[in-house]
């Protein structure tokens, strides 16, 4: 039996991915195209003993590619680059309610002369709006087969499946003889002959947009939605995360009761299980955030939010689409960086990824609370304000200013000074389809666990190794980490950190603290030879208050505003940029800023005291 290869191609918002889900179900492979970060989605189905491989090409408005996504679509349709998929047939997906735009692309594709057919999608929505399409006439005018589909209905693609397997195996390649008539004129003619449309837009869209895009009410509604989403990521995920960490702790304790003390147990408990816990605890936040993002994208609200926020973000070199990824980074940068996939312009996407680690994520709070509690007096200033609260607020503000500052500097230094295009389509409002939502969520979870989880787990085990070997000699009274590789590295690096006021204990704690920011707290407890459990940490504040100067404490706080002390973030940047070079640049500039500002803060504090 020979396999049929079919590529789905069409405008963004044509319901192409929904149709792909309908054709292939959940049997999908999601990967990247070789060498780029464009998502490659492939699936397959079998009908009457015939295997059909389906490739869901990135949405495109034109073969005049203006983004890496559209470039891929062009290369595969034209056949200029080999991506291991050679379509026997192009299925061009068009939205029956948006034919003026979509038919132009059909004509452009038709001029390639490849075998193709048109899937006239969203026929249900067209019916509801009283749009009458004469399919025979349309077929005749286009010169290719036209099949109506409803991607969101259970049997909405059956006719297409049947046609693919039975009727169209020998669809001839056509003469590409370009029409003398201009494509736009041709579309107008075809529309006037075969389509009758009572009104240009859906009445519902007009009514909703009047409120949702209103300069006052629109912003109020937007901030309500954003507030809810932020609450959900921040608070709703917590019980799930607690559950996961309890389960991992139980696993660790149980293993401890079975295995004897020793290297193997230590590797499992402090390396493997710790890494596993880290990976799994991100999942609830990722899933909740993506439920919101996918639902907002499917309803058509996300591009509207970008419309409302574009000006505010553009001033600093970002785009309206950057807002939601950055906002979610305040809970955690991992889901935030993953959410940058909703930004189409690759330069805007990269800029957003680069600044996301600067947002004050929730893992910084334990460090901030510890040091503020130990060093900042709990007193009122100016009658009203609590000084500790003001310092915390200042740290958040510092983070926000640095996000916009860095984005602005990156914009200034970007070699490509050409305009960033917005040209954003605001599609018709639609109810999200639960099945498509679930498939989307499953994709995200799989990508995170497979691609990012592996790196996090490996690095956690590596950190465990560095902090545990070589073991201290018999009768050694100091903390064990002191003689380990990490300890030696800490002592070795200590002179470098002296100008910013870090003693060797701090430098040492920063090394295992690469695992995650909050780990620095237990890391400090360990190097100050306290037990790393709760009782040890509760004494830590008092010890630090005696051992450190205020200048050192302020310097460490500043360090944590910038420093990428989180291998999970670094792993996610690697996954999302698909480049070690860009990841290296991000890590280098973040550490660089951390050092620079800590130096500034420490030296000024010393000079002033």
């Amino acid at each position, binding site marked *: 039996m020979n396999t049929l290869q079919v590529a789905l191609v069409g405008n963004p918002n044509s319901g192409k991915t929904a149709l792909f889900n309908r054709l292939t179900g959940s049997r999908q492979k999601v990967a990247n195209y070789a060498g780029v970060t464009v998502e490659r989605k492939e699936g397959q189905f079998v009908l009457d003993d015939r295997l059909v491989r389906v490739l869901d090409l990135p949405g495109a*408005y*034109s073969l*005049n590619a*203006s983004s890496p996504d559209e470039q891929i679509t062009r290369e595969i349709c034209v056949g200029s680059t080999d991506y291991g998929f050679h379509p026997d047939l192009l299925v061009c997906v068009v939205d029956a*309610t*948006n*034919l*003026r*735009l979509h038919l*132009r692309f059909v004509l452009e594709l038709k001029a390639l002369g490849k075998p193709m057919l048109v899937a006239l999608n969203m026929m249900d929505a067209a019916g509801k709006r009283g749009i009458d399409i004469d399919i025979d006439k349309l077929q005749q005018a286009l010169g290719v087969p036209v099949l109506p589909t409803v991607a969101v209905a259970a049997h909405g693609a059956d006719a297409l499946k049947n046609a693919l397997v039975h009727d169209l195996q020998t669809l001839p390649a056509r003469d590409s003889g370009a029409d003398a008539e201009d494509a*736009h004129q041709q579309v107008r003619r075809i529309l006037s002959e075969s389509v009758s*449309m009572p009104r*240009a*837009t859906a009445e519902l*869209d007009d009514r909703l*947009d009047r409120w949702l*895009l209103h*300069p*006052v009410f*629109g*912003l109020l509604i937007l901030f309500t939605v954003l507030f809810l989403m932020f609450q959900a990521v921040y608070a709703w995920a917590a019980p799930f995360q607690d559950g996961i960490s309890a389960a991992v702790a139980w696993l660790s304790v149980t293993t401890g009761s079975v295995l004897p003390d020793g290297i193997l147990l230590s590797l499992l408990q402090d390396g493997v299980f710790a890494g596993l816990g880290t990976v799994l605890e991100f999942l609830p936040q990722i899933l909740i955030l993506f439920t919101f993002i996918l639902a907002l994208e499917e309803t058509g609200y996300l*591009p509207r939010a*970008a*419309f*409302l926020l*574009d*000006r*505010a973000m*553009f001033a600093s070199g970002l785009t309206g689409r950057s807002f939601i990824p950055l906002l979610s980074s305040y809970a955690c940068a991992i889901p935030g960086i993953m959410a940058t996939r909703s930004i189409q312009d690759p330069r805007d996407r990269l800029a957003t990824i680069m600044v996301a680690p600067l947002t004050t994520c929730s893992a910084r709070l334990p460090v901030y609370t510890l040091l503020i509690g130990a060093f900042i007096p709990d007193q009122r200033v100016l009658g009203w304000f609590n000084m500790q609260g003001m310092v915390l607020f200042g740290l958040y503000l510092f983070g926000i200013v640095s996000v916009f500052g860095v984005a602005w500097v990156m914009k200034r230094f970007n070699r490509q000074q*050409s*305009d960033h*295009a*917005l*040209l*954003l*389509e*605001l599609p018709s409002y639609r109810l999200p389809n639960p099945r498509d939502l679930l498939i989307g969520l499953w994709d995200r979870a799989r990508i995170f666990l497979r691609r990012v989880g592996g790196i996090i787990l490996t690095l956690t085990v590596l950190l465990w190794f560095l902090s545990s070997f070589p073991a201290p000699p018999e009768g050694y009274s100091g903390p064990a980490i002191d003689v380990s590789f990490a300890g030696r590295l800490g002592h070795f690096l200590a002179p470098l950190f002296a100008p910013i006021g870090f003693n060797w204990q701090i430098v040492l704690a920063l090394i295992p603290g690469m695992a995650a920011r909050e780990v620095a707290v237990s890391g400090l407890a360990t190097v100050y030879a306290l037990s790393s459990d709760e009782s040890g940490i509760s004494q830590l504040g008092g010890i630090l208050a005696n051992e450190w100067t205020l200048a050192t404490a302020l310097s460490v706080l500043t360090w944590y505003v910038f420093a990428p002390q989180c291998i999970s973030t670094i792993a996610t940047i690697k996954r999302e940029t698909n480049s070690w070079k860009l990841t290296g640049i991000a890590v280098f500039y973040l550490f660089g800023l951390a050092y620079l500002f800590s130096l500034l803060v420490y030296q000024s504090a010393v000079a002033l005291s």
Partner: protein
Amino acid sequence: MDLTHLAIGKQALVTGISPRAEGDAIAQRLLDLGFVAGERVSCVALAPWGGDPMLVQIGFTRFALRRSEAARIQIEAGT
């Protein structure tokens, strides 16, 4: 005049696109999206913060355009 001068709720006829430079990708994209001579265009909404971007309707589709993009589109106030 260009599209940035179109008031909210008003319609006009596109008369052409003026590229900013040789091989202006944004001008090409505007053509591909249907901003061609003879097409009817209307301004549907303006974003807060000074009406940038603006939301316009062309054919059956709504696009958000930044002012710098809309300024490339020449129009003739019509009915």
